[in-house]
């Protein structure tokens, strides 16, 4: 049992507090991804779990054991760094076995463990090479191998793929997913890549300014975000937001959507008050006959196109159109959507209105 529990964890650098009391539980064997905008504290939180940053307040326990003030080496965690942090003067083999060697593990055992890891990661042919002689993806694999070899309870990854190019990134992403399946250890993974988060995670933790905004399975966050921030953060292209005015009778009028009036089956505030209405680009269709919006730019990527349309009131909307959808040729268009796909948020607190 190697689950992980953070209780009211706080981090301060001098006077500035950057993590504001995080509570989080990660199950044994779960793949947990931290996402959030740059500077929100993802890395800091991860490094606190690793023991590389001291915890100012609160408690961290791994596998039921309080490790808040335990040395990094003794927490049973292994970390994969964004820059891989391979020792450039050691071969792949030595890199992977270094930790064991330093901890006095017998040579034969090191050899066996390194062999095993390199088999899993298909590194057998490169064991004698130095990191310099490896491609980015191979280096990344070595870094992972180094983590595997120590057989930790928890794997920590800090944006492990951000230094790879797009193609390799996809490849390694799949590899990591498979690895998780294969060894089944608990993993915490920091990224700011949408796609990685959505595809890898069992559980996504959305962070913002040192606070957790929402925790949940990827599709849960996508379909049922708790607030505007999460709604806008998860999903690509990002959700469109327009202003809405609550009308009598539980409907909302949206000037940004061609003054459409949509019924809302949620507990709306009093009539006349404002709400924020969210609508994903995939859930809008262009109606070439309408004239409520002006097409600004159309980006065609082949399979899909993005239409940037401006409403009369200045609201800007992105519409995702498929190859076979009707495509506007500039000028005025209308938009259509299914009111069931609308999300409503409080204009003040930005909390979801359900």
């Amino acid at each position: 049992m190697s689950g992980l529990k953070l209780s009211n964890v706080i981090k301060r650098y001098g006077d500035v507090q950057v993590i504001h009391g995080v509570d989080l539980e990660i199950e044994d064997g779960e793949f947990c991804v931290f996402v959030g905008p740059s500077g929100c504290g993802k890395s800091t939180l991860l490094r606190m779990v690793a023991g590389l940053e001291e915890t100012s307040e609160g408690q961290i326990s791994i596998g039921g054991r309080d490790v808040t003030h335990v040395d990094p080496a003794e927490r049973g965690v292994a970390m994969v760094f964004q820059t891989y942090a391979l020792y450039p003067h050691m071969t792949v083999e030595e890199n992977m076995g270094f930790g064991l060697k330093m901890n006095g593990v017998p040579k034969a055992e090191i050899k066996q463990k390194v062999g095993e890891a390199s088999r899993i990661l298909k590194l057998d042919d490169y064991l004698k090479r130095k990191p310099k002689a490896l491609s980015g993806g191979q280096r990344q694999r070595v870094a992972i191998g180094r983590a595997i070899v120590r057989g930790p309870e928890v794997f920590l990854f800090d944006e492990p793929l951000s230094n790879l190019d797009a193609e390799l990134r996809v490849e390694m992403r799949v590899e990591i997913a498979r690895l998780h399946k294969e060894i089944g250890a608990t993993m915490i993974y920091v990224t700011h890549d949408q796609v990685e988060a959505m595809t890898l995670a069992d559980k996504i933790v959305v962070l913002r300014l040192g606070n957790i905004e929402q925790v949940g399975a990827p599709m849960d966050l996508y379909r049922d975000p708790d607030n505007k921030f999460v709604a806008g953060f998860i999903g690509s292209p990002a959700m469109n937001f327009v202003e809405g005015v609550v009308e009598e009778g539980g409907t909302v009028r949206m000037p940004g959507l061609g003054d459409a009036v949509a019924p809302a089956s949620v507990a709306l505030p009093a009539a006349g008050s404002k709400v924020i209405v969210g609508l994903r680009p995939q859930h809008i269709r262009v109606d070439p006959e309408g004239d409520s919006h002006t097409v600004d730019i159309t980006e065609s990527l082949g399979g899909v196109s993005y239409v940037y349309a401006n409403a009369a009131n200045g609201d800007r909307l992105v519409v995702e159109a498929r190859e076979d959808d009707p495509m506007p040729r500039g000028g005025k268009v209308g938009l259509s959507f299914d009111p069931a796909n609308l999300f409503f948020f409080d204009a003040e607190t930005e909390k979801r209105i359900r």
Partner: protein
Amino acid sequence: MADTAALQTSVDTRSWFHRNQQRIAPWLFLAPGILFFLVYVIFPVFQSFNLSLYEWDGLGTKEYVGLRNYEDLYWEFVDRDAFYVSLKNNLIWLLLYLLAIPAGLMIALFLNQTVTGIRLYKSLFFFPFVISQVVVGLVFSWLYDPTFGLLNVMLGWVGLGPINVLGNENLVTYGIIAAGLWPQTAYCMILYLTGLNAVDPEQIEAGRLDGAKGMRMLWHVVLPQLKPATFIAFVVTIIGALRSFDLISIMTQGGPFGSSRVLAYYMFEVALSEYGFRMGYGAAIAVVLFLIMLCFIAYFLWSMYQEEKGR
């Protein structure tokens, strides 16, 4: 995952030292260095301050004289005696030695090419820096020799009379500085060469597209990027100028009639040479030199502090 059990049990058995090693380790690593440095550098600085309040010939007992040594220095200054000459020469050194910086830059620019054999050229140009100042001093004394020196031979070619550089109280300091500039220029050159290596080629290209050429490119685009190299060159040159001792000792022994002395040499002469052994007085001169240098040290530390803060 079997190891973690082993790790777990070992936690408590490890020593206090092990648990606190991150706190203790830096001090263990620092201890020998700090010890040496305190004993041989930091304490002596304060001892010198203290000693400058005494009169002592290095043999008998020290006699406390308060600020008398400084008073003597003051009068020497007023009377334009040795101390005044030394101070004046130090300023000349400071100013002229800085020529090593543009000269080093020029040579570096000249050598910053990739023709075949350029590496050998670069290292040969660096030669003078590697050679002992004692040898440099000797070589330049011969160059300046009034009877056979190459300088006078060459002056003869253009019909100029012989000059005795090291024997002329108005020329001697400049002659020694010229000798000192030779290795110092080589030093600055290597600093600039490494600096030029680090110049962002895209900025140069941007400059070319912007129509900056030659000197204007140098001034507006390249030099600002060489700031770190210039800074280091400035620091080492200033320090070299203030520390100048070897060349004077070898080339003139402060002569003729003391006109090529600088503070560093004068204090050695006063404190340790054949006719010297006024330790307190020497210490007072050193303190003055230290105070001058302190301006530069403070400037250096300040700019380093700014940089550290920026990280």
